[in-house]
Structures are given as C-alpha cells and as structure tokens.
C-alpha cells in the first residue's frame, strides 16, 4: 500500500499532532512553504529554537502583536539567519555548561527562503556550516523573491518568467541555471544534507528527524511551491511538488557523511518535464525547443546524481 496515496489513513498515527506553527497566520491559500514549515515543526518537536530570515514566512507568522510560533523564534534580518542560529547555539551551549539553564537538548534551526539562503545569506550560511555548529539550516526554496514580488534569485530555474527576468519578445525569462545549493552544502563536508518536498510528508519528516539526531551542522533544501509566484491555482501546490520529484526536476535524496542515497519515493522512470511545466504559468511561454534544452539538462543532472548514489553509497547498502 502506498503511504502517500493513503495519507489520510497513516497521518494520524505517524505524524506528531502538536501544531507548533499555529493556524491564523497570513500565508496565501495553497502555500506549500507554510505546509513545509508546519511539517518541519512537527518533526522537530518543542525543544527547538528557530532563527528566521526576513521573508514570506517571517511576515506571515509574526505580525506584531500576534505570533503563530509555539516554539522560541527570532527574526533579525534578511541575510543572517544562519549566523543568528549559530550565536543561539553557542549561547545555549555556554549556559547549559554553566548550569544556568536546564540540561535538555535543544536543536537550533535557521530558516530562510532561496534568496536568504542562496544569495544574500550565502556567506553567513557557509560560515555557520563551516564552523560546525550543532544546528540545522532549512532553505524553503520557492525559486524567486516571492515576498517582494516574484523577482528572480539564483534559485530561479532556467526559463521561468519572473518580474525581474520576465519572458519577452527577445527573452525566455531566467537565462541561467539554478544554483545547485545542496551540492554546495555537500562540498562543506557537513554530516548531513537532504532535499525534501512537503508533497512527500513522511520522507520530509524522516529527514528532519535524522538531521535533528545528528550532532553538528545539517542542511535541508525544501522544495516550496508558490501558487502566487508560479502562476498556478492554489489547489495545485501538492500535485506540482509531486511532479517536480517525478520528473527529476527536484530529486529527493540525502547525503550522510558524503554517502548519497536517493529517496525511495523517487520513481524508477522519470516523467517528461513538460508534465511539470504545463500547470505553471511561469513556464507558459517556453517553446518546445527551449523545453528540450532544459529536459536535457534535467536528465543529465539526474543521471549524475544517480551515479553518485550508486558509487558513493554507504557501506551497509
């Protein structure tokens, strides 16, 4: 029996019922990112401190004097969620050692969007990961600056139309390939790197739980479909996430101490990327030739990943 297909049956038994991101926040309807943050909180549990970057999740969850957060949460600025998290980790470590706070294990988590992770916050993240803090950083990647109005980032995929890389008579939209952030994090030789998608909640939760259990820095890259920015109906958030995985555009995998593993949710045979592009307005302008160029790249990139999973697997697999 497919767990994801029968999610209603399994969810109550497999997923923490506690909501640490409460309802009443101001996210757009159909936002996959807020669903992902909810799942992340369920997996982390209450002994968590979150440092958030400026962005959609900060704006929708913390409108003063209200808050949606049931866990300790701090927002400082756009580019420094990882540095703030690293400081919290250092502070809590010192206080625990000196017996000034109770002895419980607390996981510190930094979170930000693709801009806060891959562009403006890149240096802070690299520094925090390199220093080996016991923390998780989660990038909620909706592939553009959605909070400011759908401007392109280095996470925007080739061919997507955004407000600063629009499709036009002489432009196909984004002209560069998406920055491969998970591989950059793997190159930091941190203990754990994984990709997740809220359309696969059990895989998602398992990976967050694993990151939580690992001592040292972990990086989670989360595919966060944005109906507003991707020009798709709000009911498509979950299905488009599924298509991203099924076409290999966003493969689910994890890298533990340098060993690659594809998620069991990855299909044996990938669907063509046009299936993924079709429900999204941001790719509507692409010609079959342009789609073919992107298809080739996706195929090659997935093959590279599959090779790594084959040759850089753990000893017991």
């Amino acid at each position: 029996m497919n767990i994801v297909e029968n999610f209603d049956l399994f969810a109550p038994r497999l997923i923490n019922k506690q909501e640490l991101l409460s309802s009443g926040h101001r996210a757009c309807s159909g936002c996959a990112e807020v669903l992902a943050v909810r799942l992340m909180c369920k997996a982390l549990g209450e002994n968590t401190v979150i440092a958030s970057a400026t962005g959609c999740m900060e704006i929708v969850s913390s409108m003063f004097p209200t808050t949606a957060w049931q866990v300790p949460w701090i927002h400082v600025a756009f580019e420094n969620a990882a540095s703030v998290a690293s400081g919290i980790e250092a502070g809590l470590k010192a206080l625990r050692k000196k017996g000034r706070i109770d002895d419980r294990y607390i996981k510190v988590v930094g979170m930000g969007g693709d801009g806060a992770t891959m562009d403006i916050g890149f240096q802070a993240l690299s520094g925090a990961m390199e220093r080996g803090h016991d923390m998780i950083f989660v990038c909620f990647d909706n592939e553009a600056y959605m909070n400011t109005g759908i401007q392109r980032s280095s996470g925007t995929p080739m061919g997507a139309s955004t407000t600063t890389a629009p499709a036009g008579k002489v432009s196909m939209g984004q002209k560069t390939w998406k920055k491969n952030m998970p591989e950059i994090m793997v190159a930091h030789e941190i203990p754990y790197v994984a990709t997740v998608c809220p359309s696969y909640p059990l895989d998602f939760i398992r990976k967050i739980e694993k990151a939580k259990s690992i001592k040292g820095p972990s990086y989670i890259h989360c595919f966060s479909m944005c109906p507003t920015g991707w020009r798709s109906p709000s009911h498509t958030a979950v299905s488009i996430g599924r298509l991203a995985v099924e076409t290999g555009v966003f493969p689910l995998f994890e890298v533990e101490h340098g060993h690659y593993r594809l998620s069991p949710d990855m299909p044996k045979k990938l669907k063509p990327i046009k299936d993924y592009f079709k429900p999204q307005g941001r790719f509507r302008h692409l010609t079959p030739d342009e789609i073919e160029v992107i298809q080739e790249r996706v195929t090659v990139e997935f093959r590279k990943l599959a090779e790594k999973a084959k040759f850089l697997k753990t000893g017991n697999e």
Partner: protein
Amino acid sequence: MGKRIGMEVAVAVAEAVGLCNIDMAAVYPITPQSHIAEHLSDLVANGQIDAEFVTVESEHSAMSAVIGASGAGARSYTATSSQGLMYMHELLPIASAMRLPITMAIANRAVSGPLNILNDHTDIMPQRDSGWISVFVENGQEAIDMSIMAFKIAEHKDVMLPVNVNIDGFQLTHMVEPFEMPSQEEVDAFLPPFVPHATLHPAKPVTMGAFAMSDYFTEIMKAKDEALLNSKKVILDVWDEWAKMFGRSYKPVETYKADDADVLMLTMGSMGETAQMAIDQLRGRGVKAGLVKLRLWRPFPHSEIKAVLKNVKKLIVTDRAISFGGPGGPVFSEIKSALYAEASRPLIYNYIFGLGGRDVAVGEFVGMVDKVLADTKNKAADTYEFWGVRE
C-alpha cells in the same frame, strides 16, 4: 585589591572583559581592534574564561551571532572598528529594538575611502541614531573601567540596551599604559549575574523580532527613545558606584580649568589629555582657556552641557568626523542644538581635524585658541573649518 600594571590597552580591555564572566564572544579581525579578539581567544584557549568564542566569517555575522546569543540569555560581547562597524550597521538598531544588552568595544578608525587604518571618529558617527548607549574614553584606565561598567549598565532591568565603548584606534588601543586592573573578586562584587527578561528557550517560548507595520511602529520607536533617555539615571548610578568602589569617578561631561575661562575647548576621546596640556600652556601665558570633555555621546547629556557652557563667551568644538555638505562636525551640530534655546550662548567655532590618524599635537589646540581669540569680529564663528589642511 586590583593591581597596578602596564599593558597594551587593547589587551587590557580583553583582560577586563575576561573578568566579567562573559558567556559568549563573536569577533572578526580588523585593525586596530584585532588585539582584543586575539587576547580574548587566548583567555578562552587557556581556560581562563569559560565562554564560547565564535570565529565568525564577518562583522555582520559577529553582530548577528551576539544578537542570537544574547537573545538566548548569554552575556555576549563583540568588538570591531571602521569598515567592520559599517558592515554591522544594519543590525545595530535591531539589537537595541530587541533590548538586548550586548556590549561592544569600538577601536575607532577612519572609514574608507580612501582606505585608511588610523584613528578618527568617522566610524561611530554614522551609528549615532542606532539606539545604543555610546561612551568615549580618554585613556587606558577609562577603557578598562568603561568596558566592565558597560555590562552592568546594559543589563540593568531599567535599561536593557546595548552599549558601545569607543576607544581611539592606535592612539589608545596600541599604547602601553599603566593602570589599575580590578581583581576578579572586585568585579564579581560589582557586577551581578545577567538575569535576562525573556530568552529563546523552549521552557517559555517567546517571539523576538516580530514584524510591525504603521499601527505599532511609532509606539515602538517612542519606547526605544524613552528607554535610552531613561538609561542616563542608571549610567550615573553605576558610575557613582564605581567611584565608591574603585575611587575613580566619571561624569558625562568633565571640565578642566573651565570655571573662569574666556574660551573653552571641547573634545571627545583620547585627545582630551593632549588638549589639557595645551590649556596648561595657554594658562602659563595668561590666556584664560579651559577644557570640556564629552564622555557620554548617547544618551546625550543636554543638562550637563548647558551647565558647563552657560557663562563662556567662546567655545571651540573639535570634531574627528564631518557631516559632508552639512552643518560641520557631528559634535558641533549636537552642541549647537543643545544650546539653541539658551538665553545666553557662546560663539561656537568648529575645527575638524585628526582625520585618518593625522597627529593631534598640543600646538594644534593652542593655535585654535589663539585664532579664536584673535577673531574679534567673530567672523569665523558658527562655521566649520578643516584645521591644518593643505590647500
């Protein structure tokens, strides 16, 4: 009892901070601050202080990390200078808005361009409106004393604001000076443990750094202004307490031979001692000159400034920074604004000098006083001039 020692001032500042039972420090190297970072990391490496030393990849992350640690309830410290302070700039008003009692040493240095590593006050002046308590020190002893007192002021329940201690780069940081270093027992008796108001701990979850629009923003700004204004009482109390314990007293505004002076000179930071020698020289010639030293920059000591300047005819304000295309030096415009509503106020002359490490010698101050006294038609009053500039 503290002991009398000779030491490089930057190293002594790190020693003094080491006596304050800090929990965490995050510092990024920059000349002329680096000796503070290096010596602090030595103290941690040798187990002399029990703290986490986070070797961040930038000053922006240094301030971010101390904000995080302070939010978690840890006594947190950083130090920087010049470009590093400019890089932190974005975060300074956030730290004060969150009411985090971070303390920071600033080894004052010229801001680029052109690149220059030497002393002036162009780095701290753009941070003026960040909502931090800001003090300037004149010598090594003061740098030590202010560094320790900064924690007590910042963490006081009626303050809960960050504090920066301005120590002139090289002119002070790299000087070997004699001073009295308090003992650990004395600092322990003076400085109580940090009891934070709210912390990032799951035992009692809080949200820090929330998003506020026009319906709350103005009220939050007013609250911050009131907090900074109200901090003055605590600053004075803590300085008094220090005087009682250690015999060294500090005031927001200090004077030297000012009571009968016809002309007063106003300085901030390390040049005060040089100016003092100039006053002695002038007095030797029968010139009735005196000195005013401004120690507390924020909250600005309006009443004290008014009191010491109320009878003087001419005032020279020295500035080691300039507001380009504006009223002159930042200290000058502050003093003018403080005196505007007074019934009698002095003629004010503004000299901008000592930029990018250019030497500030006794003769410079003497020359300024002579020039101002010779200006019988008051032509140069109320304007600014670059002193000693080649044209």
